């Protein structure tokens, strides 16, 4: 396959940055999207040009490190992460525009790499349960209803990649936040800190500069883990209750 790539190039956080066009030949349909970028970087290095900086880690779709806005879609046209997107989803001769996540709370480090430590701080500010350490407790001593356990498990699949923020016109992290609130709030272990957690986490979310949710649903459509929109309803419900319960 031969492709035309329009890639955001930005030397550092203070650089203005611009889209730059590259021609790439010899792309196999079996390559992953990141392998295609690796191929481009080999070509750039061969020509003594600066390779494109992008994030990746596990390349198995489970770590949440890779990102990329591909032709206006977070993680590209398939419901998966960029590393699990394959070039068979594109056609020979395609033009592909590749941009970083765009959010003031995710400042650009270089090219396509953004700093998502704002998510880490949201987790630090309540996204956990407090438990005494020691030997592992007996697994069946705290019963968890199956439906709640399943919902907690499904929302715990959130890998914190930031696609929800990238796809949201408001730059809201409500889907991420909702996933964490639901995941911890559905289980018995999450109950003692349930309402203080939602207050701290939304406080951090807002302080980081993320926008408010307008319930339009772009986040859930972009989520590679298919976290549904109802976690935002759960977040809203828990926050509403926390206003009364303190």
């Amino acid at each position, binding site marked *: 396959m031969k492709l035309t790539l329009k890639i955001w190039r930005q030397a550092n956080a203070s650089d203005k940055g611009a889209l730059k066009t590259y021609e790439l030949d010899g792309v196999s349909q079996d390559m992953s999207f990141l392998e295609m970028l690796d191929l481009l970087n080999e070509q750039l290095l061969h020509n003594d040009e600066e390779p494109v900086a992008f994030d990746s880690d596990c390349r198995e779709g489970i770590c949440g490190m890779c990102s990329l806005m591909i032709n206006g879609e977070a993680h590209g046209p398939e419901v998966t992460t960029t590393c699990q997107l394959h070039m068979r989803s594109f056609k020979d001769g395609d033009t592909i525009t590749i941009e970083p996540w765009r959010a003031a709370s995710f400042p650009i480090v270089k090219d396509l790499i953004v700093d998502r430590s704002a998510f880490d701080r949201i987790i630090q500010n309540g996204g956990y349960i407090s438990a005494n350490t020691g030997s592992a407790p007996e697994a069946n001593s705290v019963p968890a209803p199956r439906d709640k356990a399943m919902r907690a498990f499904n929302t715990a699949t959130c890998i914190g990649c930031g696609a929800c923020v990238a*796809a949201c016109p*408001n730059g809201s992290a409500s889907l991420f936040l909702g996933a964490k609130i639901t995941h911890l709030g559905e289980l018995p272990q999450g109950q003692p800190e349930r309402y203080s957690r939602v207050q701290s986490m*939304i406080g951090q979310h807002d*302080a980081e500069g993320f926008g408010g949710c*307008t319930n339009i*649903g772009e986040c859930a459509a972009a989520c590679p883990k298919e976290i549904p929109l109802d976690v935002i309803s759960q977040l809203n419900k828990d926050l509403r209750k926390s206003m009364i319960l303190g």
Partner: protein
Amino acid sequence: MRAVATTTLIKGARSTRSTIALKLLMAASGIVFVLFVLVHMYGNLKAFSGELAYNEYAEHLRTFGEPYLPYGGLLWILRVVLLGSLVAHVGAAVALARRAHAQRPVKYAVKKNKASSLSSRTMRWGGVALFVFIVWHLLHFTIAKINVGKGGQAPDITENPYRLLVNSFLPEQWWMVAIYLLAMLALAFHLHHGTFSAIQTLGFTNTAESRARARVAGWVVAIVIAGGFSLVPLFTVFGVIS
């Protein structure tokens, strides 16, 4: 609420100061508006019962609750509640829109909408359009009582709610009918997403089924209210109400 990136953890955050609290304010004030337009729409349909019934209804709105309330008391209570809701609704919308704008200083060169409805993407400008319409609508029927049809500003027309209504939507003033129908389209769009969004913001859509029901509620509210309102100008311009 600061809209800047920070590297520190926020201690003692209060839920009443959060973006979600602003959304809850928008949902609550929005529900006030939905209930109001529902009753308003029902009242308008009195035009189908003729001049006497329509004007009687208009007068009854003013004598409602007498002697417990003074003449026109109910309307003044409604005005205060609606104005308060408007300030809350617009204030929260402006605050949230500014946050959203600050969060994306550099726009995407290419951005696709995959799941959002047209109505959900037109909430802000649609809201501005509705505001402009409401100002005109109040000047037209309440504050200035502008009769655009024949008869001018004669008191027998401006002081007669039914005549003012009919004279506004005569075939010669087709453009007036167009303005009102266009406004009802904007209202339908706003209600379609607004109803769903309010239910979701209040936290009543925790399953796929309840979310689907909330979407249906959005359609029902939009069609019933905007459709009901549109009947009166349409039936007047075609001469059924005269």
